[in-house]
């Protein structure tokens, strides 16, 4: 049996690893990996193109969650949604980036755990609301933020959404992953109750919350250390013209690079 395993398709994995290490364009890397894997598996050119085409059609549901909200989120941004999110968080004096994200982590994880995975997400929650709030809360305490800090806050906002979603959804009994797991185990001759799988996810879900919340708390302490001494002009007004100009050039430049 061991000799029957064809190791050549692993070329595709090698293409991915080398491609990402050498920082080629990811679209190019993935297409090259698909072609290389097909060749290594002994597919004909026609078969390779058909496999790529069929795969691409079958996975059309994946980008919907990114593309569909863009029109409405873009329109609301034009009318000041992100600015409003910053103003709102500015009105809460106790808000810090870390505390805000800890609350979001808890809400995201708990709602995902009861199957409400739609209550978050990067295009419709993180970009227009959570990231601007994290920036706004920090700006409110320390005044103008350097770009590096701004980018770090945004990355933490995105990471918090991911951690909350991943480690919450798997303790929801009706979640697809649990169905997949019990089906596969049954095929292997091991019968398992979906409920038990969900329950045994809870210890890890708690660990994930504690670990990530600790990191968010440390983020607050680090912000305090890096920004607290130098330019504490708090409580800075959200409408500070310097801040406004900074945000603007920042978005414009990022737009050029993208």
């Amino acid at each position: 049996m061991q000799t029957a395993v064809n190791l050549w398709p692993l070329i595709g994995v090698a293409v991915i690893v080398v491609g990402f290490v050498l920082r080629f364009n990811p679209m190019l890397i993935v297409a090259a990996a698909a072609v290389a894997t097909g060749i290594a598996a002994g597919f004909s050119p026609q078969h390779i193109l058909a496999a790529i085409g069929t795969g691409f059609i079958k996975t059309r549901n994946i980008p919907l969650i990114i593309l569909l909200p863009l029109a409405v989120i873009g329109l609301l941004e034009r009318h000041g949604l992100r600015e409003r999110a910053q103003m709102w968080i500015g009105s809460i004096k106790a808000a810090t980036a870390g505390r805000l994200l800890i609350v979001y982590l808890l809400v995201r994880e708990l709602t995902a755990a009861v199957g409400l995975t739609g209550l978050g997400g990067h295009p419709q929650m993180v970009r227009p609301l959570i990231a601007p709030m994290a920036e706004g809360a920090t700006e409110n305490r320390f005044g103008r933020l350097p770009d590096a800090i701004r980018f770090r806050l945004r990355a933490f906002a995105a990471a918090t959404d991911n951690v909350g979603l991943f480690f919450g959804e798997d303790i929801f009994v009706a979640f697809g992953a649990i169905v997949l797991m019990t089906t596969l185990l049954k095929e292997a001759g091991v019968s398992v109750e979906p409920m038990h799988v969900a329950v045994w996810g809870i210890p890890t879900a708690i660990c994930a919350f504690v670990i990530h919340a600790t990191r968010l708390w440390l983020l607050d302490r680090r912000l305090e250390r890096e920004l607290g001494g130098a330019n504490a002009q708090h409580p800075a007004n959200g409408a500070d013209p310097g801040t406004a100009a900074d945000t603007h050039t920042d978005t414009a430049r990022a737009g050029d690079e993208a």
Partner: protein
Amino acid sequence: MTITLDYLFWLTGIVLLIVGGMIVIDREHPRRFSAGGFWLLYAAVFLVGDRLPPPVVGVVVIVMALIAGFGGVTAGKPKQLPEAQRRASAQRLGNRLFLPALTIPFVTVVVTLGAGHLVFGGTPLVDPKNVTLIGFGIGCVIALGYACVTTRDNVGQSMKEARRLVDALSWAAVLPQLLGMLGLVFSDAGVGKAVAHLSTAYIDMDLRFVAVIVYCVGMALFTIIMGNGFAAFPVMTGGVGVPVLYGIFHVNPAMMAAIGMFSGYTGTLMTPMAANFNMVPAALLELPDRNAVIRVQIPTAICILVANILLLNAFGF
């Protein structure tokens, strides 16, 4: 009438068609033909993709990858209202601005929970196989109408804004689907079997703790390669989980499954292959470093992976 995913595919296709058309006729766009053409090809995949022969779609995919790979999908100059005007508008509209945005999750949840009751004459209104995604699509449409009313703006303007965001996302919007395709090609070609063979044939798993580590770390590593815990689970559970942990050491299989999948998720946090969670947000949040989200997640992921190994070893047997 049953609302199926096809309606969402057509809607997405129409939006991409408009966006692509806008880019092609925009004389100020630095790469209007290559970038516009890229989005028009993508629109075709949504509008007529399932009626084209698969090899033709394959050619379309390769052409899109080449356009993106050689820098053809750059963004144009974003036409935004000045900051001061946006602030004034935010002042005027107040917290009413939040409501359309929150409509999306609200409608998603209502449709998800209520779809079972929406059956007319034996025909379900929402395709039961894709309730959440269709609810999400309906939510986006309702939210757009609501947003137009709140802001007194129109759908035409919203298409211009969609174009601004699609332009900013660039090819990152397509990468998750391309990776999904790669996963299917991998499993067609037997990559999973090869990896399972390598990871089980060369490691001595007589010690229980070693077997636990191989299973959990293997899930994470395999997920890093495939970008998806679902792809890793059958391989590692079939290769190590069932024969070794269950067959020899009599692990609690429910706990093994739960912790195995969560170990895979720690891999998802650490890989550019999970593009929709890691690369897309970096593009959406306009971060100059496209791996910035992964960098932030790695410490959390490694700590959770260690916690998983300890939990399974302590309570699984």
